[in-house]
């Protein structure tokens, strides 16, 4: 697939895909290259895993007599900055995909690194916040405000997401290096973008569900 996709992305494949070099069995029925479809399917299953965890959180939070609302303005501000960083990194990802499809190798690599950098900043802000909460005495089994499940839900949901961001950073850097050395194609950059946007989208659920719903009320 590598030879066809250095040109303008999907222009060849979207309209019948007659130039797939490695496969003589005819055109791709849905004009979705295998790697992209594979990533979409992975995203479907991963979204369901997140949904199950979020379902568990909702199930237990609704059943609880009280749920702590410990996040004051500094915490919400911090989480908002994290959201902003992550969303900005998605913009960088879009630019990376665009640059790669136009064949601008150094531009694509630069934007990929910028995207990964956004992920790193997000992780750093997140870990700082975790350490702050741990300092306040929040544990998976205990916290200063009662309802021990608060800590369990918080660390599980944000931890699972942080793991995804971290994996994404590594993934993006691998793609950046590989694309720079022409080992990976623009299609590979686009597939990594799918993953990154998905991780970003998950955060858009976690941010309101975990932070805003637990914001300190005056």
């Amino acid at each position, binding site marked *: 697939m590598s030879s066809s996709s250095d040109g303008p992305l999907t222009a060849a494949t979207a309209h019948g895909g007659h130039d797939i070099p490695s496969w003589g069995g005819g055109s791709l029925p849905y004009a979705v290259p*295998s790697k992209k479809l594979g990533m979409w*399917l992975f995203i479907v299953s991963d979204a369901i895993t997140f949904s199950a965890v979020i379902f568990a959180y909702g*199930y237990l939070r609704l059943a609880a007599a009280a749920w702590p609302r410990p996040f004051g303005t500094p915490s919400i501000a911090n989480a908002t900055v994290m959201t902003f960083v992550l969303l900005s990194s998605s913009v960088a990802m879009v630019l990376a995909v665009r640059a790669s499809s136009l064949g601008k190798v150094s531009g694509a690599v630069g934007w990929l690194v910028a995207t990964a950098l956004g992920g790193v900043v997000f992780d750093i802000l997140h870990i700082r916040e975790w350490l702050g909460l741990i300092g306040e005495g929040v544990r998976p089994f205990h916290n200063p405000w009662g309802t021990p*499940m608060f800590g369990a839900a918080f660390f599980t949901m944000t931890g699972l997401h942080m793991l995804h961001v971290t994996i994404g950073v590594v993934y993006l850097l691998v*793609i950046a290096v590989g694309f720079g050395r022409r080992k990976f194609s623009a299609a590979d950059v686009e597939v990594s973008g799918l993953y990154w946007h998905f991780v970003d989208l998950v955060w858009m659920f976690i941010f309101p569900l975990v932070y805003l719903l637990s914001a300190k009320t005056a």
Partner: protein
Amino acid sequence: MAMEAQQHQHTAPTGFIRKYIFSLDHKVIGKQYYFLAIASVFLGMVLSWLVRIHLVWPNVHVWGLGALSPAGAPGGVISPEYYLSLLTIHGTLMVFFVLTTAPQAGFGNYALPIQIGAEDMAFPTLNMLSFWVTFLALCALVSTLFVEDGPPISGWTAYPPLSAVGSLAGPGQGMGQNLWAVSIALFCIGSLLGALNFITTTVDLRCKGMTLMRMPLTCWAWLITAILSLLSFAVLFAACVLLILDRNAGTSFFLPSGLLVNGQLQNHSGGSPLLWQHLFWFFGHPEVYIAIVPGFGVISHVLSVFSRKPVLGYKVIVTCLLAIGFLSFTVWGHHMFLSGMSPYSGFLFSIPTLIITIPATIVSLLWLGTVYGGKLRFTTCMMFALGFVSVFVTGGLGGMFLAQPSLDIFLHGTYFVVGHFHMVMGVAAIFGMFAGTYFWFPKMFGRMMNERLGKIHFWITFIGVYCIFMPMHFIGLEGMPRRYSSFVNDLMQPLMPVHKFMTIAALITGAAQFIFLFNLFWSMYKGPKAPENPWESTTLEWTVPSPPPFDNFGGKHPVVYHDAYEYGDVHNGKDYVMQTDPAGQPAKS
């Protein structure tokens, strides 16, 4: 992800490790899955023997068991707790490593790419990883037999609080249950990677002319099963992660407050054991169809081949399989009628459960219609296919009782349930595997299996499974509870002769499986050489040599001109038209 840089290799690897161990070839990986399932099924079967023996002869000394588990079976006498341990491993092995593995990942990996005219799966490296992750999962599960406390006692469903509170709850609930949870989490990952590979392969790699509606029904079944796996294992994975956290990080997702375990108050609060049941059965019910739908595919396929007739209602079967797949996600609550859920919810889950019987019945009738009026060829494979229809219908009838909350209140947790799911999920799926083995063996190993041994194997197995599982329905109706290790000094005592009968039937039927095992390995080396198309079948795997070359089609790209089941009309002395035959006339069906 390991999706990058996967090129189709066009030359076969040389060297033992790349060829047989870390192979990227879907045919080798299919066989690896198949043998993993064979190993698991025989281990699981021996465990079920021990369970059956303990039920009727609770004080018997089992040779070697005392050495394996001095605590669980001192002197070889199985303790009640160890009975539950054996039951857990039997169930987990059979459901995950046999019923989920062989029909889909085994036969599917082997036959799907060839049947749709592809050289390999879409992601060969991912395919190899799926197998090895599954293999690790099996190692983790089997290792529970060798840890100090033995395997967990919480059953294959691992209901909390028992599964979540740790070693205080009983033998095997420490390390054993941890290994179980890790094993299942790994298994989920392997299944998810396999599922996305199957779907991508089916969508993207079909050869020219292989439209969706020309695919063999086996491929439809594998596709639908892969979709079910993709959507359901993701939930079980999340549940396993939460269980592992509950056990090791002190969280309380599945643990309520005020829990007394062996007299000690647990420091947990805020969780719910019902949450596990919801997450588990949201996976668990589609799982039933993950086990059986590949069997539907194989049976539809095989009945047509050996009846020399096109499949009756191809489109209807596809529609029914899709309907079954969809409905399977709406019925998980029927496993929880007695968990304290609202009767209205019970009613809500009961309705789609009963609706599922409609597509299942239509498919069963279409199988009979396919056979009706055909020129039947009674090969062993065909007999197992007919046996599948029999056991599936018999087992399925019990499901209509269990689907109704009012009846389930009585039948829940009795041997009726055990008989039902063994018949409809276990035995039927295993008959599907037997049919698949006798059908594809010539292609997989290039030799024919022995038909005489096959028929002996079939008749003992067919009669045997009815002798084992039909009485379970009756003693269940009498109220005999499942998961009790013994019924000594109990009002159930008058039913013990029935148990004895079932145990003897299980020992004989199990012993007959060694005929199969012998036939399998003997034929692999000593069977007569298989021709290219021994069954006079039409699909693509029978256009290539037995066994096929490394890239399946020897560098050629097959082109498909026909539906998958054009049997019956005689042209040039043949009563079938190969899918790749450009000159053949389409059969009038």
